[in-house]
Structure formats: structure tokens, C-alpha cells
């Protein structure tokens, strides 16, 4: 069965510091991979996605993620965090070949940014 693990429930960083949020998946074949962000009172917003090709993908708001097949990981990074990045971040996968892209989510990582 598909599963997505985000081992860090809560991360606190200082503004300007670098950030890495971890995501591991368990799936038979490389799935489609996504990172979503949710700010309070907002819906989930897509940050970036990986389907194939270059394993380093760039997203919105200065985020990037690297797919590592050998580690079944898709970690999200940002070189310098801004206070407005405080939110909850969700890693998600969809089965390769899935017609409608049903998403399987991780539990989420809450990011707090200190000024």
C-alpha cells in the first residue's frame, strides 16, 4: 500500500536560515510527487511537483525539491526562509498511471519561523 512519511511534525527555524523538510514514500513504482502548503484559513496550494526528468524541481515562492530514487525521498528545501513561509507543508504522491491523480498525503510538517 502507498504511504507517505513526513518524520518531522514541527520544525522551527530563524528567518533567513535554510530549510529542509523531509518526505519519504513507500510505493511499488516511482509515483508522481507533490508538495503542498497550507496557510491558516487557506486551502492547500501546490508548491511543486515531480513527474519525470530532472530530479531537482523548482517551485513557487523560492522552494525546490529533490527526488532521490535510491532513498525514496522527495525533500523540500529553501535556502533562506521568510516569516511568511510559516505554514503547514504536506508531501503527497499519486500513483503513476492514475487516471485522476488520487493523492496520498503525509501527516504534514508545521513550520514556525522566528524573526
Amino acid at each position, binding site marked *: 500500500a502507498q504511504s507517505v512519511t513526513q518524520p518531522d511534525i514541527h520544525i522551527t527555524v530563524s528567518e533567513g536560515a535554510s530549510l529542509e523538510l523531509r518526505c519519504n514514500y513507500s510505493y511499488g513504482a516511482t509515483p508522481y510527487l507533490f508538495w503542498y502548503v497550507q496557510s491558516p*484559513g487557506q486551502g492547500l496550494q501546490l508548491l511543486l511537483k515531480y513527474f519525470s526528468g530532472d530530479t531537482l524541481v523548482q517551485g513557487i515562492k523560492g522552494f525546490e525539491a529533490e527526488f532521490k530514487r535510491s532513498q525514496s525521498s522527495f525533500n523540500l528545501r529553501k535556502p533562506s526562509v521568510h516569516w511568511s513561509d510559516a505554514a503547514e507543508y504536506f508531501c503527497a504522491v*499519486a500513483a503513476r498511471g492514475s*487516471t485522476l491523480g*488520487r*493523492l*496520498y*498525503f503525509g501527516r504534514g510538517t508545521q513550520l514556525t519561523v522566528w524573526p
Partner: protein
Amino acid sequence: EPEVTQTPSHQVTQMGQEVILRCVPISNHLYFYWYRQILGQKVEFLVSFYNNEISEKSEIFDDQFSVERPDGSNFTLKIRSTKLEDSAMYFCASSTGLLAGGPNEQFFGPGTRLTVL
């Protein structure tokens, strides 16, 4: 920018009552979804809907749940007889469908928090 909207933002109901959660997907989208997140747990898929019928549903989506697109703009989730364990945040999402190479982005609404007492 077009967005998915959901009403109400918060619904409180008594156990055993019926609730209808409403969503207005983005107007040119063809694929619709409901997900839910019980407090402290993962966001879970409930159902996907295309061409006026259910395409896929999870094991959570039992006979107590139903979905409908009654008028070409709204997309509703009905829970016929709510249970305490139905308390959760319910997210609606919509998508234009498939891109070459993978599924297109699902746009999510802000959610409806359902509290069953």
C-alpha cells in the same frame, strides 16, 4: 485568480443528523474531489467525480456518504447520519484533468470544519 470555495467554513451538528457540505469548483474544471483531515491525522482521499459519476472512492466513503453535482456549478458532499468520528476538516478540490505525463494540479478549497457532537 479563480479559486475553489467551500461553505460553510464551520458546521456543528448533532450525531445522527444529515449534513451537506458545499463546494464551488473552478468553472472550467472537470474533475472533482473530496478529502478530509481528522485533527492530527493525514489528509485522506474520500472520492473523485468526473462526468457526473464517481470515478474512485476510498474505503472511508461508505453508504453514509454521497456526492452530487446538482446544478453544474456546485459539488456537494452529503453525510446522511453523522457520527462522532466524522468530525474533521473536509476539503474539496478540482482539476482540469490530465496533462501529458501526469495528473494536473488539484486546486483545493479552504475547507469546512465539521464538528459532530
